[in-house]
């Protein structure tokens, strides 16, 4: 069993280069990011074939929801980064609070996403309305699935850190969960730019 506090060198990363979390989570993150990269490329490739349709459809997206959701995920990611710092410093209470705040932001994102989908469906815009909306629902839907999984991870983490016993293995698990959540954040940054912003 690794000793408690073995990860204290993490506080001074200049001393030793290290990868946070477990190797497995990075393989998953790498795979996920590759799949999303390809989907981003495919979207832009087909966008060129019908610029007028893609632009007129994009103009119907709720940019305000998209913008607020970008802030919510960025803030959530920041809270998670703070939670990891707290866990490394063995500050259980702070870690619990940070994970809960991150979860609250994720709940906000989800509520807005549901409101956005509802707004679209009520306006008669569904996945097979046109090519743009097919990509819109597919990309944001797969991303939303990641958000829901991430919310489960955040809820688990908030309980996981509560007992205040931080072994090196446990900190590794916390870092893995955190890395997954940061990936969810960065994928949204790309989605927001590609779907909502570019004309």
């Amino acid at each position, binding site marked *: 069993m690794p000793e408690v506090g073995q990860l204290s060198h993490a506080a001074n990363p200049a001393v030793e280069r290290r990868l946070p979390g477990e190797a497995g989570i990075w393989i998953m993150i790498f795979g996920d990011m590759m799949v999303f990269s390809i989907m981003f490329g495919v979207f832009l490739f087909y966008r060129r074939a019908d610029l007028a349709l893609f632009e007129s459809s994009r103009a119907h997206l709720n*940019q305000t929801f998209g913008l607020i959701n970008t802030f919510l995920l960025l803030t959530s*990611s920041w809270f998670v980064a703070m939670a990891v710092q707290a866990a490394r410093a063995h500050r259980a209470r702070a870690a619990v609070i940070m994970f809960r705040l991150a979860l609250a932001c994720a709940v906000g994102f989800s509520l807005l996403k549901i409101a956005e989908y509802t707004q679209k469906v009520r306006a008669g815009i569904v996945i097979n309305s046109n090519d743009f909306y097919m990509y819109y629902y597919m990309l944001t839907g797969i991303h939303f699935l990641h958000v829901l999984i991430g919310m489960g991870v955040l809820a688990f983490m908030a309980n996981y850190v509560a007992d205040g016993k931080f072994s090196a293995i446990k900190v590794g698990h916390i870092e893995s969960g955190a890395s997954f959540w940061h990936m969810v954040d960065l994928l949204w940054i790309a989605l927001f730019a590609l779907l909502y912003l570019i004309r």
Partner: protein
Amino acid sequence: MAATLISWGFGHGRGTGPQAAGIAVIAIAFVKIRYVILDFMELRTAPLGMRVAAEAWCVLVCVTLILLYGA
């Protein structure tokens, strides 16, 4: 945060033509993504191979997307 607002401004076509604005939006998004990877995911201090791979991914995907967008 500021970068998000700037992107949003570009998205509304402020200042420039839509083409240049679109390229700027994609580029700014990937600058933000790079900072999330380096500072939140902590790859800045990861083993060098991992850091290089992450930086290369950012550049490669960003450039490819800008080309596909229509640079």
